[in-house]
């Protein structure tokens, strides 16, 4: 009797597990189709250049205030916190070298991507899903405009382009924050600070930073447009889409960071 009971429970468990796996696999297939469609549409005319520029403005330009503040604080605080341990070894003259490596190799792309996931991801997720719910995407489609090109491709390209731009900016402003933190304690001319910085950073670091930022930018755009475009109908779908756009892009950014670090350490 117990054996029979056990078997039926096991069977139910297996069935429900299989159903979950199936759902997951179907989702992957959908993501794959979305990705393939993106690459198909991105290379085929007509190109939505005007909409791309508008999105760069919406996504990039409007993020500058927030990103300036965050970049500055990160540079400032990081420098302040590293000082005591370096002083202990009598190596406080190494501070500029240390922070330039930290900022360019890790902090700038990561901070930009995380702030970007929060601000840009939620913006895109909410906007597209509310357009979906209120049938604006359908309306676009029946009036002879390809909504995938107009809405998705332009946004993904804009984030892929703007996140690197913002990353460079964050690196610059983070270094400024570091410099200000240093001169609150020591004497150091800006010229000698920056000459130390540029002596430390290698070209390959800059390339690596750009590469990371490109990957993160694409991820944020792709994830949040995907989530918004396929959001469930109904108003609660909008909130859910905004939320999962942020969570999913942050999560994937971290995973990618991990993989990229492994990859770079293999290459160099």
């Amino acid at each position, binding site marked *: 009797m117990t054996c029979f009971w056990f078997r039926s429970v096991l069977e139910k468990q297996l069935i429900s597990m299989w159903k979950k796996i199936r759902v997951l696999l179907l989702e992957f297939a959908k993501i794959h189709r979305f990705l393939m469609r993106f690459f198909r549409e991105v290379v085929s005319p007509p190109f939505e250049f005007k909409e791309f520029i508008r999105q760069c403005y919406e996504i990039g330009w409007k993020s500058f205030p927030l990103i300036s503040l965050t970049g500055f604080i990160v540079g400032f605080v990081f420098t302040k916190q590293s000082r005591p341990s370096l002083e202990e070894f009598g190596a406080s003259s190494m501070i500029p070298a240390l922070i330039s490596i930290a900022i360019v190799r890790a902090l700038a792309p990561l901070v930009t991507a995380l702030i970007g996931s929060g601000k840009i991801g939620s913006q895109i997720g909410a906007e597209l899903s509310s357009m979906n719910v209120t*049938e604006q995407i*359908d309306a676009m489609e029946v009036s*002879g405009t390809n909504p995938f090109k107009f809405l998705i491709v332009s946004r993904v390209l804009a984030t892929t382009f703007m996140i690197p731009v913002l990353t460079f900016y964050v690196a610059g402003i983070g270094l400024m924050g570091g410099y200000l933190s240093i001169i609150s304690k020591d004497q150091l001319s800006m010229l000698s600070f920056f000459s130390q910085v540029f002596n430390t950073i290698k070209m390959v670091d800059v390339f690596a930073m750009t590469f990371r930022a490109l990957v993160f930018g694409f991820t944020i755009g792709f994830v949040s447009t995907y989530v918004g475009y396929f959001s469930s109908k109904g108003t609660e779908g909008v909130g859910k889409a905004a939320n999962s756009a942020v969570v999913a892009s942050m999560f994937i950014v971290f995973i990618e960071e991990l993989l990229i670090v492994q990859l770079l350490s293999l290459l160099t």
Partner: protein
Amino acid sequence: MEKNKPVIDPQDVVIHVDNVSKSFGDLHILRDVDLKLYNRENLVVLGRSGTGKSVLIKMISGLLMPDAGSIRVLGQEVTALSEKELQKLRLRIGFSFQNSALYDSMTVRENLEFPLVRNKRNLSRAEIDREVEDVLEGVGLSQAINQMPSELSGGQRKRIGIARTLILRPDIMLYDEPTAGLDPITCLEINNLINDVQARYNTSSIIITHDLACAKQVSDRMVMLLDGRFERQGTFHEIFDTDDARVKPFYDYNFIR
């Protein structure tokens, strides 16, 4: 308020829905549906909520694909068209959505311009402005040109939605519940607008509605979607000349019997 009915040629079919079925998962919405829309005719589609009326016109405009059957619009098989061909065909079909579907990040002017600017790239600024003012006047909302959709009432949004589809001068109009949720006077205005469009632009239209006053005023012919099929069709009086318990409540409710 009877309208002047146009002369219908039964050979001149603009939309032919032939044996179409559609399900979502286990939910069978439409079963072997047949429907013809004749040139220059206003066809009203009646049916309860959730019977698949919106699904039907979304299939006609290629937003959804049927599981089986064929849909010919202006001589073209919608289910077999390429993306490009479908886009071209859609320019000849106006779709007025159940909830207007105005682009809420754009002003009324930008909403109306959108289909024009995107599809006729050689128009000059002055020509675009003239077209926009023209259709806006046609729906009686010239003063709203610089407002945002969120600042408009439901009836105004409906009319702007209709204007936006009219700007491309479609041969076919699909109206999804044009009068739902509007006060009687606005309903009357919309009904007149629908008849006006038919007379002025020679369009053939499908009008989905629950509103029998609207149906009576605009229809040349009516069909009723019952249990996934068009079981009844005819003029307003023919449709309701029955004791069918699925049909009578429509009439009794609308005319307060």
